[in-house]
């Protein structure tokens, strides 16, 4: 499992990737690995009343990563319920973010592993 942002020839960066760059329509040709980078929490929430197969509460954050002369954001689970806006976090690999077998989506239709954000003390 990778945690890659995608870049087109014009330098636009997105996470996740797209068939064509949403900004300019060019193909995205490069990847930027975010898994070994640190990011900053833009906002967060403790989500309760979560869907089947999802932990409760499910603490989520939108995190911003600096990549060269621009930035890219990602959303993901947080490893702890103790998080604040502005916290610096690093991605931590998790094999299964939610139980694929009890939700509405066909389990084989997508990946279920990925990266949680861990605040750095």
């Amino acid at each position, binding site marked *: 499992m990778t945690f890659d942002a995608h870049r087109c020839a014009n330098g636009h960066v997105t996470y996740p990737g797209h068939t064509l760059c949403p900004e300019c329509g060019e193909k995205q040709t490069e990847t930027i690995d975010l898994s070994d980078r640190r990011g900053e929490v833009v906002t967060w929430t403790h*989500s309760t009343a979560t869907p089947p197969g999802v932990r409760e509460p499910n603490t989520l954050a939108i995190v911003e990563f600096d990549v060269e002369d621009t930035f890219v954001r990602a959303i993901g689970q947080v490893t702890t319920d103790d998080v604040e806006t502005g916290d610096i976090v690093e991605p931590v690999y998790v094999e299964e973010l*939610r139980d694929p077998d009890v*939700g509405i989506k066909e389990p084989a239709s997508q990946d279920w592993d990925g990266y949680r954000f861990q605040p750095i003390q």
Partner: protein
Amino acid sequence: MEVAVLEASMTKFGQRDAWLRDLLAEAGEACLSDAPIDNDDVEHLYVSNMASGEFEGQTGVMNWLAHDLGLLPAYSERVDQTSSSGGAGIYEAWQSIASGASDMTLLVGGEKMTHKTTPEATDVIASITHPDEYKHGVTLPSFAGLTARHYLERFDAPRESLAKVAVKNHKNGVDNPHAQFQKEITMEKALDSPIVADPLRLYDFCPITDGSAAMLFTTEERAAELTDDYAVISGIGGATDTHVVHERDDPTIMGGVVESSQQAYEMAGLGPDDLDVAELHDMFTILEFLQLEGIGVADQGTAWELAMEGYTDKDGELPINTSGGLKSKGHPLGASGVAQGVEIYEQLVGEAGPRQVEADVGLACNVGGFGNCVITTIMEAAQ
């Protein structure tokens, strides 16, 4: 060609025993029986519905309804644009008349949801997200929590301003016999309710709802021959924003609201200052602020002040959600955009009863996903 709304109706919203087919038939039949036309006159039928297959295993609902209401051989089509399916149905119906493809179009929106548990219904709705969002358990309420925190922190807005939206819309809903909740709430109750996606609590969210709503469209020329009580669609626009919500340049700007409202204003030759009443998609209280800013009524980061000042109260400068909004009226996904149109129609033709405000121009903004797809409709009273 100017497009008129000839009639509009809706079922009681709430926890209903009826399944989708009967809810659709109830609203559709009420709309047709109130209109000065024969069922044979209907040439197009649109059914706005997000997820009948996922919720109850029933597909092909447009065919069922056309047959059941005696509308054969009218062209029929199901319209899915998630939570904005109803607004998209208005767009389709408007196109059908404006293009000359149909002289009489019935639109019926509906959803049956309450037989599912809250987690199950939340999952159906969350299935609209990107796989890289869905696997993290991201839900629509969690987008609202993430965005509300950012809004409050960035614009230094008080938490109470969001509760004011809930209190206002519940108060408006008391006068709507079709609303799921006809019950006022206090600020204390809203602020002390259980956390759903903090900083948002239970009363910041619309309920899960069964219900249906219908509108009948024809040319303005034909409407004027048939009745004095009709409204005209003077402007309409639809637009799409990013599928992945965190990819938006500014988390507090709903690009689909901005773009679709600009299209609608331009078509109508009107602007935000011309509005007398509006129905906004308050699936979450924070969305009322983002839409007030998106449609140009408030500058970015200031709509919370309008809520605090009572500007958007029923007796304020610009009444917002006189119907009670999704918050107290309920949110049967595919029905909601149509029900917004029903409220604006009733306000413009003077049929809103105790909810009536002085209005010649009304706007409805129907939001799908978390602003992913948006339809803005401007209606005016018949001249």
